[in-house]
């Protein structure tokens, strides 16, 4: 059966999204900036390196444990800029609101955007509002775009991973995915799992203080850690090996995954980054990251092993080894 329509899976951040971007968007909008398929574009404008990115936020439910759509809309775009190695400066914000949406909720969302932009040290400087007929949108959609400045000497891209680089992450994975899912589906776990929604720009600034020689930064949002690592492996044409026992996961998230048959490697994060850096600067980098509020549980989880077509391997806890593929479609709870 050939696909002739857009399915939800096209938006899941996995293989179908990747193919859609490559075959439709990239082939039409083709230019060297877009071709890098990074979280944002780094533009050279009269000697200034300007990072520019955009993202739309649609989340159900709008409010979840540890965050809400407004916070996500600020931090998500701030993080995309940070992943270019940029200092985020200004955001735009546009709302698409369904007729009948509660003004009180809108106020809550906007006030949490104000708080989030203060924390992330960015200003929302331009915007737009559209209201559509009931049913033409699901409650509220938010788009934010952002610009930031990339310092001289910083050259971060998904295609820069080098053999010998170590792979680091700034904390446990998967809590956003489980927090949103449990809120949406009304699943109750003994302990509350909170989303990790957080701005990563201060952490990246700290990291760049240690060294500008960071090769790759990526925030593993939709599609999770495995999808980000696969994208990097493909762009950089390298094989990456990660160690299952080194990947930090909260106990509660692990338990929820065991129950639902989910693989935490594919769960969304909203306050995590993976960094590829030369091994010699890793000890200092780790020390610095652990001092930042959002990097306390930073860890080395793997390394780049060789030049190749771009595969990701997992050394399993019991001593086996297997491939880690991109997410295909949305993760679905299993039958038995």
């Amino acid at each position, binding site marked *: 059966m050939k696909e002739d329509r857009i399915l939800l899976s096209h938006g899941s951040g996995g293989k179908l999204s990747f193919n859609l971007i490559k075959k439709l968007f990239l082939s039409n909008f083709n230019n060297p900036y877009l071709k890098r398929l990074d979280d944002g574009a780094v533009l050279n404008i009269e000697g200034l390196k300007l990072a520019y990115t955009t993202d739309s936020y649609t989340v159900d439910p709008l409010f979840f444990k540890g965050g809400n759509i407004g916070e996500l809309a600020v931090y998500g775009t701030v993080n995309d800029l940070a992943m270019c190695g940029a200092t985020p400066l200004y955001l735009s914000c546009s709302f698409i609101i369904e007729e009948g949406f509660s003004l009180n909720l809108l106020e809550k969302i906007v006030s949490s955007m104000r708080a989030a932009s203060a924390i992330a040290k960015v200003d929302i400087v331009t915007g737009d509002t559209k209201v559509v007929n009931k049913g033409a949108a699901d409650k509220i959609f938010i788009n934010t775009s952002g610009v930031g400045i990339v310092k001289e000497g910083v050259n971060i891209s998904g295609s820069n991973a080098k053999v010998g680089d170590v792979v680091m992450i700034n904390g446990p994975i998967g809590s956003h995915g489980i927090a949103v899912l449990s809120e949406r589906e009304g699943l109750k776990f003994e302990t509350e799992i909170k989303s990790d929604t957080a701005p990563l720009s201060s952490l990246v600034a700290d990291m760049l203080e240690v060294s500008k020689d960071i090769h790759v930064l990526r925030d593993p949002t939709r599609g999770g850690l495995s999808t980000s690592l696969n994208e990097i492996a493909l762009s950089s044409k390298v094989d990456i090996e990660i160690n299952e026992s080194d990947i930090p996961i909260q106990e509660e998230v692990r338990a929820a995954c065991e129950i639902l048959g989910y693989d935490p490697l594919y769960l969304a994060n909203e306050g995590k980054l993976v960094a590829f850096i030369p091994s010699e600067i890793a000890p200092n980098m780790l020390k610095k990251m652990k001092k930042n509020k959002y990097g306390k549980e930073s860890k080395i989880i793997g390394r780049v092993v060789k030049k190749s077509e771009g595969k990701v391997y997992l050394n399993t806890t019991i*001593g086996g080894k297997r*491939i880690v593929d991109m997410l295909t479609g949305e993760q*679905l709870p*299993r039958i038995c």
Partner: protein
Amino acid sequence: MKYVDEYRNKEIAQKILRQIKGISEKKINLMEVCGTHTVAIFRNGIRKMLPSNINLISGPGCPVCVTPISYVDEIIALSRKEDFIITTFGDMIRVPGSTSTLEKEKTDGADIRIVYSTLDALKIAQDNSSKEVVFMGVGFETTSPTIASAVLKAQKDEINNFSVLSVAKIMPPAMKALLEGKEVNIDGFICPGHVSAIIGSEPYTFIATQYKVPCVICGFEPLDILQGIYMLVKQIEDGRAEVEIQYERAVKPEGNKIALDKINEVFKMVDSDWRGIGNIPLSGLEAKDKYGKFNARKFEVEIEETREPKGCRCGEVLRGVIIPSECPLFRKACSPENPQGACMVSTEGTCAAYYKYN
């Protein structure tokens, strides 16, 4: 994680592997007949850790995969009826029927909802009393008691707009069919842990006594599986054929009486079509006549003519006759984004596991 990490210990895994290597050099084929085992074996990289004389074959253990195309067509036909809500466990929605999938029907406006429990489906029925709510009864003995419970609750609470389209299946007759088919030489069965927690060990006895094939009921953690493999290899080396339980912390020889009683109360055994294997006598479950009003086959639907995807060798994969890479469509026309057969759709399908982890 407590109660889990103990079963993922590297040193113990290495020790069991050495023991397996120490007791046999024979070429041994072991078949797992549970999709959760298939995935656990791949996710932990167990296949490559085993000595080369031990070959693991994946059998018909994924409920999604053994569901015939005609059933998917049947549920799609129901989903197109006005005022019908189809409720299903998540992994069925992408399974291709002859010309469509539930995912596509949903895109076209059918009301299809993923549930985590049969009781969620009942709740949907209660909340939508003007609509018919049909639950897709797909699964093995592990799922059947929960379907039976939902039917019993519907009866008690008089929820008359709830029904089940059942293709629930029973595992041991399929194992018998594979042995009778003699296409694959099976030296031992890794028996399913969840299914056996319900049915116990007795239903496998005929495999050991009549067919002289050892059986070990295994848990799902890597050490469970390795120990189970060790127990099977040991039986083979000792010349024994017995049903042993490795997964003692969950499986009792007599099974779970409460669950079995519920199955027996609601369901009767019927002949059932298994994708790739064909019709197996008394291998399926359908609501007894006294629960007929909860049987979705009471609705009239026109089901399209079954069309198998050309070149798809899911059937042989399910019987363990070929491995996925021997199918001409594998990784070419057939991938998880564009699956031709069910074995590529379900996360527990053999083709999906080979694609994803190998």
